[in-house]
């Protein structure tokens, strides 16, 4: 099981351990955890609701993982993305990548996050003192994803 889209929280330590369990060729595990911040665009955020496109979400994440596996030599990849209502401090997303050496695992982990940010169909609705508002996509996310197109790695 490589990709999960779920309402429930996840166990980061267990996920990281699972990426190398019984696989002694793994020398490097790079991971990323994204969390709900209590500030966004200058407003305080009390909570947020993550909407997604069931079916397409899983497909898009699996496709991103496949691209990473085609690009780097990896031993294991795990992506978990939550949906529903989340509060500040709650985990949103986990990406873990296992490989032989650190360079490729760092690159693949960041690649997956950058692509996820621009291609996986999730949308954040934030609760602020001024009411609920949909988060606008950031240009910086597009440019973060675009640099992988130019890169020869």
């Amino acid at each position, binding site marked *: 099981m490589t990709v999960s889209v779920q309402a429930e929280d996840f166990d980061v330590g267990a996920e990281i351990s699972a990426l190398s369990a019984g696989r002694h060729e793994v020398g490097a595990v790079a991971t990323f955890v*994204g969390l709900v911040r209590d500030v966004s665009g200058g407003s305080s955020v009390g909570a947020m609701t*993550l*909407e*997604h*496109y069931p*079916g*397409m979400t899983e*497909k*898009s994440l699996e*496709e991103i993982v496949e691209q990473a596996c085609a690009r780097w030599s990896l031993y294991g990849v795990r992506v978990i*993305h939550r949906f529903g209502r989340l509060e500040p401090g709650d985990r*949103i*997303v986990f990406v873990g990548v296992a490989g032989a050496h650190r360079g490729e695992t760092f690159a693949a982990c960041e690649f997956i*996050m950058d692509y*996820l*940010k*621009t*291609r*996986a*169909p*999730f*949308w*954040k*609705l934030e609760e602020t003192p001024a009411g609920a508002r*949909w*988060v*606008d*996509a*950031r240009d910086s996310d597009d440019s973060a994803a675009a640099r992988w197109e130019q890169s020869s790695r």
Partner: protein
Amino acid sequence: MTVKILYFASLKDALGCTEESFVLPSGVSTVGELRSFLADRGEKWKALGEGRNVRAARNQRMAAPADPVLPGDEIAFFPPVTGG
């Protein structure tokens, strides 16, 4: 000759619609043509109009305006994604 159309996030709110079954009119054979046709249905549908930052998916994969629309397809329109 129908397609299923889904709307998400701020676009869903602007249109007041999450899903519709839509009979493809003649002359509508691509994702871009479908979007233009829908945008012309009335005031609130301008949220789908040119110049609006709307993305599309066909059968749950990101789609370009030139991609074909065929009977039975599931087409989705939504704003740029903001997960992660």
